[in-house]
């Protein structure tokens, strides 16, 4: 299959920070690559290089068959970019925004107008089309931003954290749009801090940390790297964390993961539900009260921890959007915690 996006050895430094430290990326035509990593990992810098916004210090990149450095305008004609912040002019109406973008893509005035109307209808914005974007809700703005990126139905799309800051309902809705887009043959490079999002949308995932791709594969391949199932316990009393850790170590088949702030202990196991029952009895016998316990198959979260040795630190990764279905093998006894299935906001 032909590659729609190829990047080799991208390096970009800002002062003493190596934002990109030799990044290789390749995305076959018609597939989705998820760039996964915490804030500051280099995801956005990578997108900015591939979309001609930033010149790399070294390395080369070819997008939709055109060299990013040598033929940037040809690249720009073939791509759509939907950024982290909804980049629409808030004093212009939805229709005016889309017409403007269409004309700047060098469509004729008439085509730009027709395409704007089409997109407004497709993105459920027809009713609001003649109101300034200032009056739109966050979800509507994000849809308008995405519509603007799709004005010429570009064969290659870049989405930089498309769902950051959206509520679960809007996030799911955006996911459906992205899925339809990809079903239509668009090649997509998507950055996200949400492991669940990469799992859900991307064919291939590249895990990025400190400007490097530290792992690459399908979600299943990455999970396989981490190994089998694990037991996760949330202790009620932080003072008993050490006791519980010691006890669980004797049941486990590998290194313990302890997140102190959440009083959470994770331990790789073999033995399934039977072992889980044993652990519960043992905890009970020792009088260690627990808030939550579950048997889990590895999530991408675990992948990240096992690859980097730390949970991904993220500045704005605090909760408030719980209740997402992470759709993968979770057999917890309790409801999903708010941070399940996404990059954790805590230090390990």
């Amino acid at each position: 299959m032909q590659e729609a996006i190829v990047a080799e050895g991208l390096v970009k430094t800002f002062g003493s920070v190596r934002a990109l430290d030799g990044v290789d990326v390749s995305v076959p035509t018609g597939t989705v690559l998820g760039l996964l990593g915490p804030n500051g990992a280099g995801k956005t810098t990578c997108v900015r290089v591939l979309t001609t916004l930033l010149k790399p210090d070294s390395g080369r990149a070819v997008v939709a068959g055109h060299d990013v450095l040598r033929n940037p305008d040809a690249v720009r004609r073939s791509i759509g970019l939907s950024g982290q912040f909804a980049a629409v002019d808030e004093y212009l109406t939805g229709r005016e925004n889309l017409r403007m973008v269409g004309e700047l893509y060098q469509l004729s005035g008439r085509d730009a107008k027709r395409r704007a109307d089409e997109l407004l209808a497709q993105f459920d914005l027809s009713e609001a089309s003649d109101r300034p974007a200032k009056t739109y809700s966050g979800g509507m703005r994000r849809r308008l931003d995405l519509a603007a990126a799709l004005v010429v139905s570009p064969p290659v799309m870049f989405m930089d954290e498309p769902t950051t800051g959206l509520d679960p309902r809007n996030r799911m809705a955006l996911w459906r749009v992205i899925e339809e887009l990809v079903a239509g043959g668009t090649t997509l490079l998507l950055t996200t801090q949400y492991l669940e999002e990469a799992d859900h949308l991307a064919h291939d995932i590249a895990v990025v940390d400190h400007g490097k791709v530290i792992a690459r594969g399908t979600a299943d391949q990455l999970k396989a790297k981490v190994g089998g199932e694990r037991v996760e316990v949330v202790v009620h009393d932080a003072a008993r964390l050490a006791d519980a850790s010691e006890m669980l170590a004797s049941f486990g088949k590998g290194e313990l993961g302890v997140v102190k702030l959440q009083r959470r202990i994770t331990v790789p196991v073999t033995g399934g539900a039977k072992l889980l029952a044993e652990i519960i009895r043992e905890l009970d016998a020792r009088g260690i009260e627990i808030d939550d316990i579950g048997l889990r198959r590895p999530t991408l979260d675990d992948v990240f921890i096992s690859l980097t040795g730390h949970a991904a630190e993220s500045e704005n990764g605090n909760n408030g959007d719980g209740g997402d279905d992470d759709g993968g093998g979770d057999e917890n006894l309790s409801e999903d915690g708010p941070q399940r299935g996404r990059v954790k906001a805590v230090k390990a």
Partner: protein
Amino acid sequence: MAVLTETPVSEPVVRGGLAQSVRDSIVMTRRNLIRMMRIPEMIIFGMIQPVMFVLMFAYVFGGAIGIPGVEDKTAYRDYVMAGIFAQTVTFATAGAGAGIAEDMHKGLMDRFRSLPMSRGAVLTGRTIADAVQTALTMVVMVMCALIVGWRMHDGLLKGLGGLALLLLLGYAFSWIGALIGLSVRTPEAATSGGLIWLFPLSFLSIAFAPPTTLPTFLQHIAYWNPFSATVQAARVLFGTPGADAVSDAWPMQHPVWASLLWSLVIIAVFRTWSVRKYRSAVS
């Protein structure tokens, strides 16, 4: 929500060169003009300030400052107006800077830079839209000045020529604003960054008073100041009494040429510099 139907979309046309630059600049100018109309308070405030300056200078300083070579004690009102016009048109610097800094701040600049559009169009569109707003402000200010006693003594045609030179100076300065807007982090910084240096520049000129009492080296600065060239050109074209009694420095002797030259040089330098900065802008 959205169902993405298969839509035959016209391929983007590969244009290039001047035709695309002009078209893209028109699209961007229209965008900025629409924005201005949606924020009418900005236009209103933009008009109140120069009107206040006209009234203040006419009535507060009007009787107190005499013009060398002119007997009439109210001549200052007539004399100072060209200076106030010049100061007002150069306030466009702050507007252009703030607008461009806001586009950077909001991520719109990234969108524009990822589109196959002419590299200068975003900035050109903004500066032209600012020139339109400046022209509107000037209409109000001219009417106000006529009321307090300012006149075009040498006929309408020359008078309009003077106003055109002023407008050109404002356009040139808005390119300085564009560069400032691309260089700072917030719109607020662009506004103050676009204004602070304007005050010394406009006061160290012949805009508000003949600089005859200044130390000699400051007089030289005042006479070679781009501000002074345009103010002097406007006074000469307006036929303002007292306009010919200035220094024999070249810009004061050939003010129309000096004004044109200054404005064109500023545009050439700052447009080139800004467009280069835009290409590599990081928001």
